[in-house]
């Protein structure tokens, strides 16, 4: 899998087959009626494997254990999680996801689709996404929440492994609450990205960038106060019942420290 069968025809490279891997993982979390959360759907194929781990209280916990060595060029991964009314789900991953160049030409995709019904709660806290040199990934996260859903979501992008130039990475994050788009952000970086991505307006040489989104119905009446966390991070109230922490840092470790501190303040 993942092999590309490009061949040269009269000096022209032609992709005969777009031969990336397609893999999908699905999670469905449901209020079990006994004060807990059941997982009637928990399935992952190919490189995307899911494990239920020990939860706490009424919360179910799931670990993504697969995708650390992908996606490669041409691969298309999809992860879907749906949290039904009253259910609580926490999802993490066992290791960072590394976007790598594949033999197949062209971009790979990683799509995350999350829905949380009214009264449901989701904590989506995967490890970093690392854009390795030569990779080309378009990652999207789309989250649909009910008006009374709760969410904590963290995304971290690390540009290159230690000392390595990054690949091309475009990541889009769309958050809807009660049918209204509250946040729509895309960040493009690496070779081939529009100019200035590493300049003083966008990343200025920082190699890690992250977002932390916290949605709570209470924020509608009482939004968080905007606040700067050092030169490289700020917590802001969005135009909806949500708070966003945006942070840039020299590396993934420092980024995590800032986001953890911000999450602590939002508790």
């Amino acid at each position: 899998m993942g092999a590309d069968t490009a061949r040269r025809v009269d000096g022209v490279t032609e992709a005969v087959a777009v031969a990336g891997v397609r893999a999908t993982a699905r999670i469905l979390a449901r209020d079990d009626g006994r004060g807990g959360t059941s997982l009637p759907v928990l399935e992952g194929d190919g490189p995307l494997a899911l494990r239920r781990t020990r939860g706490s209280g009424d919360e179910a916990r799931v670990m993504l254990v697969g995708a650390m060595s992908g996606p490669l060029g041409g691969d298309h991964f999809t992860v879907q999680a749906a949290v039904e009314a009253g259910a609580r789900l926490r999802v993490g991953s066992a290791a960072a996801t590394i976007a790598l160049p594949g033999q197949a030409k062209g971009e790979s995709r990683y799509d995350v689709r999350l829905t949380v019904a009214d009264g449901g709660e989701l904590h989506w806290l995967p490890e970093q996404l690392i854009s390795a040199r030569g990779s080309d990934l378009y990652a999207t996260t789309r989250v649909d929440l009910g008006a009374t859903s709760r969410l904590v979501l963290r995304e971290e992008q690390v540009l290159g492994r230690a000392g390595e130039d990054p690949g091309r990475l475009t990541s889009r994050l769309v958050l809807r609450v009660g049918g209204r788009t509250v946040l729509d952000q895309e960040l493009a970086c690496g070779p081939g990205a529009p100019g200035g991505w590493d300049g003083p307006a966008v990343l200025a040489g920082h190699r890690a960038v992250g977002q932390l989104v916290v949605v709570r119905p209470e924020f509608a009446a009482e939004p968080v106060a905007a606040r700067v966390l050092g030169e490289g991070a700020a917590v802001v109230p969005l135009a909806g019942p949500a708070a966003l922490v945006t942070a840039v840092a020299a590396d993934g470790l420092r980024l995590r420290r800032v986001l953890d501190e911000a999450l602590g303040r939002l508790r």
Partner: protein
Amino acid sequence: MSRAALLVLADGRFPAGGHAHSGGAEAAVKAGRVTGAASLEDFCRGRLHTAGRVAAALAAAAVLGVDPVELDAAADARTPSPALRTAARKLGRQLTRAARATWPSDELDALAREFPKGAHQPVVLGLTARAAGLGAVDAAYCAAYESVSGPASATVRLLSLDPFEATGVLARLAPELDRVADRAVEDARCVVDEGADALPAASAPLLEIGAEVHAGWGVRLFAS
């Protein structure tokens, strides 16, 4: 349509409040990220392809008749920093005033009624271009150009940068401005068919963070 109307609208002296805003340059200068013409150019290029591209598409979509209320909500979703949302609405309100005096139109009056405290400036810019008889590409050019001309003239004041160097920066960005404006019109056409979700959402983390840092200063030269 009068081509010259574009010059009136794009003139840096058009009285719509822009002179008091640095487009993030004041924060970047203070943080030591913009120190001269080269880093200004890099700053402007990054702003053009992020905030500038989104503003250009919003403005173009407004010219094409997309509901300004829908576009304004989309602009909110693409502007996480409350300091930047406030600045965009302030500038939008000021542009509404200047536009209604310059090119009186029912649409601009309706916009002023709908948003008494101001809609996002690029949305107002699009409706202004419409009132002036200009097209989507004209509005896109204005928005894209403003996204770089504001920081460039602010940096002349902040760093006492040679004004010829700052103008040279803008001239070197011209081919990219052309591409951003053209692409913004394509995006805007998609918005007509598919709705505001088709708008670009290119973001610049340090513009957002820098705007919040700047808003917290007790002493500053520019409003944003």
